[in-house]
C-alpha cells in the first residue's frame, strides 16, 4: 500500500488520537472557577501561647527543709491558661464571636487561630478584639515577681531564674487585650490578613498590593 493510501486508511485513527490528545491536554489544565472568588476576604491568623494565670505562694523555711535539697523551689505556683473572647465586626456588624483556648486537653498548647471572613470589596471599618476572659486580682502589682528570699545550697539563684523565666513566658504570651480598629480597603479577590506582631505585641495588618488576577 502506498504512503498516501496508508495515511488515508489511518486518517480516522489519527484524527481520533489527535482529538483524544487535545482532550487530555485540556482536562489537564481546565479552567475551573472558584466560587466566592469575586468577594474579598479578611483572614485572622495567629499562633501564640495563652497567658498563664498563676497563684503563687512563697514556701516557708520549714516547708523547704522538709523537701529534698534538689526540690527546694521557693515559690510554688498553681494556675491555668487563659481563654480569650474573640470578636470581629465589619462596618459595625458582628461577623464572628467565639471563645478561644489553647490547644491540647489542658489548653496549655499555643492558640492556633485561622478564620476567613468573606467581605464585600470597598473600604470597610474592621474591628477585631481579642480579650482575656479571666480576671486577675493583682495583675498590675509590680512587686509580684520580687518576693523571693535568698536561696542557698543547690537552689542558689533558682528563685531568680524562675522569676526571669516567668517574665519571659509572660512577654511571649498573648496580652490581656489585643484590639484593632481600622478602615481597610478591599479589592475583589484580595485577602487581608490580621495577625499578631510578636515584637510589638499588637495586631497588625498584612496585605499584598492589589494585583491582576
Amino acid at each position: 500500500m502506498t504512503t498516501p493510501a496508508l495515511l488515508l486508511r489511518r486518517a480516522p485513527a489519527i484524527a481520533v488520537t489527535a482529538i483524544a490528545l487535545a482532550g487530555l491536554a485540556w482536562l489537564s489544565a481546565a479552567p475551573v472557577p472558584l466560587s466566592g472568588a469575586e468577594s474579598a476576604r479578611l483572614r485572622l491568623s495567629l499562633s501564640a501561647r495563652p497567658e498563664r494565670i498563676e497563684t503563687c505562694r512563697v514556701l516557708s523555711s520549714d516547708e523547704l527543709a522538709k523537701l529534698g535539697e534538689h526540690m527546694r523551689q521557693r515559690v510554688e505556683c498553681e494556675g491555668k491558661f487563659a481563654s480569650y473572647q474573640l470578636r470581629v465586626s465589619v462596618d459595625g456588624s458582628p461577623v464572628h464571636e467565639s471563645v478561644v483556648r489553647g490547644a491540647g486537653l489542658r489548653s496549655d498548647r499555643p492558640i492556633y487561630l485561622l478564620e476567613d471572613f468573606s467581605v464585600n470589596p470597598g473600604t470597610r471599618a474592621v474591628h477585631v478584639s481579642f480579650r482575656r476572659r479571666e480576671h486577675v486580682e493583682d495583675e498590675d502589682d509590680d512587686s509580684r515577681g520580687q518576693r523571693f528570699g535568698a536561696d542557698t545550697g543547690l537552689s542558689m539563684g533558682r528563685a531568680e531564674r524562675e522569676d526571669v523565666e516567668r517574665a519571659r513566658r509572660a512577654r511571649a504570651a498573648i496580652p490581656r487585650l489585643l484590639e484593632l480598629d481600622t478602615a481597610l480597603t478591599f479589592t475583589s479577590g484580595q485577602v487581608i490578613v490580621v495577625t499578631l506582631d510578636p515584637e510589638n505585641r499588637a495586631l497588625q495588618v498584612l496585605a499584598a498590593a492589589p494585583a491582576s488576577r
Partner: protein
Amino acid sequence: MRHAERAVRRGLRVLDALCARLYGVAWNPIHQSGTVAVAMLLVLIGTGLYLVLFYRVGSPAESVARIAADPYLGSWMRSLHRYSSDLFIVAAAVHMLRMFAQSRSWGPRTMAWISGLTLLGAGIVCAWTGFVMAWDSFGERLARDGARLLDALPIFSEPLSRIFAGDRPVPSAFFFVNLFAHIGIPLAMGVILWVHVSKVARPVLLPPKRLTWSIIGALTVLSIILPAELGPPANALLVRPSTPMNLFAAWWLPVSERLSPATAWGSMIAAAILLASVPLLTRRRREGPLAASVVDPRLCTGCNQCPQDCPWEAITMVERDDDRPTLVALVDPARCVSCGICAGSCAPMGVGPPGRTGRDQLASLREELVTLRETQPVVAICCSQAPVSHVDALRVRGAHVRPVSCVGNLHSSVVELLIRDGVPGVIVCGCPPRDCLSREGPKWLNERLFNEREAELRERVDRRRVRVATLAPGDLSGTVAAYEAFARHLSALDAPVGEPAVEIDLICDPVPIEADA
C-alpha cells in the same frame, strides 16, 4: 452489583469495538490498559529524574517556571511528565473498570484488585504532591484543601493550614517533605506493583514495543505543541476567580472545597470501603463453571506440564501417596480461577475443572459426531466470551459452532477427533491475545496446535485443515474474512476421508521422578 458489571461491560464493549476498528486488534489500547499504566509509570520516573535535578525546595515556583521556560528540554520534559501522569490515571481506571466488568475482581484475584486500587490511589496522591511542587495557583489550591482536610484529623499539633495563611512565607521544610513524598510514593508503588502481579505466572508488564513507543511519541508531540500550562505563582493574599486545574488527579477538588472536612472524609472513606468491598460484592459460588480444577491422580503421569502452563501458579507437583515413581499434580483451589488451561495441557486428560477436562470434552463431542458426519460442516470452536454477532456470522456462513470456555481449555484431542472423523476443517476462534480472560489461552493454543507443546496435536492430524482465528469486538469483517479464507482454502483440498471408529490415546507413559530430573 451484577447490573453494574453488565452496564460497565456494555460501555467498554462499545469503546473496545471503536478502538479495534480504529487501531486494529493488535494495537487496541483498551486491551493494554494495565500495561499502558505501567509504561506511563516508567516514563514518569524517567522524566521525574530529569526534573528533580532542576527543582529547588527553596524557590519552588521560580525553579519550575525556569524549567517550563526552557524551550529545548525542560518545557516538553515537564509536559511529558504531566501528560504521562494523566494517562497513567486514565489507563489505571480503565484497567480497573475492565477487571470489574469481566468479573475478575474476586476470589483468587482479590489481592490484585486491592493492590490495584492502592496503586491507583497512590498514583493520584503522588500526582497531588507533584502539583504542589510547582507551587502555582492550582498547587496552592490543592495544598490548601489538603491541609484543611488533614487538620480535621488529630495528627498535627499546629494546623497545617496556617502554613498557607499568608502571614509568613511557606517554609522550605514543607516543600522538602512534599518532594520526599513525591519521590517516596513511586518507590512504594513499585512494591505494590510487585504484589499486584505476584499471583500470576509470567506477568506482562509492558505493552508491545511499537505501541509503547507510539504512545510516548504521541505524548511527546503533544508536549511540544501544547506544553502543559503552568498557572500564575501561588499567592496566599489573592483569591483567583479561576485556576487551570488538572481534572484527572483533582476532579474531586471543586466538590471537596464545598464540603465540610467531616463530610469530605466521610465520602472518601465510604468510596474506599465500597471499592475495597467489590471482591465481596461480586464473588460467585465456586461451583459449576467456576469450580476449581481437580486432578485425577490415577491418570497423572507427573509430567510437570500443567504447573508450567497454569497462568495463576495454582498447580504444584507433590509426592504421591501410592507407590508409583512419579510426582502428582496438586491444585490449590484458593489460587485456581477455573480457566481450564490445565485441561488443555494434560496429555492423559487427568486434570481440569469438573466437566471441562479433555475426557469430558471428548465425551460431549462424540455425541455430536453423528450429526456432523451427516452434514460435514466446518467446525468453529469459539471462546464463550466471543461477541454473539461474530458467532452468528459464522453460523450464517454454514459453520457448526462449538463453544469452549477458553481456547486454552480446548484439548488438542478434540481437534484430532474432529479431523480424523471426517470434518473438512476446524477453525478455533479465540479472544485477542491481550484480552483473554484466562490470560494465556490463545498463546498456549497456538503452541499446542502448531509447535508441539504438550498436549500437542498429533502428527497424524492434517494441519491444513486446522486454523486459529481471533474474534475481536469491533472486527466482525476480520472474523468473516478469516472464516471465508479458511473455507476457500478447504475447498481447494481433497474431500475429507473419515476414519471409522476413531480411537484417541487416553493413556500416557508415566514420567518417573528420576527421568524428569
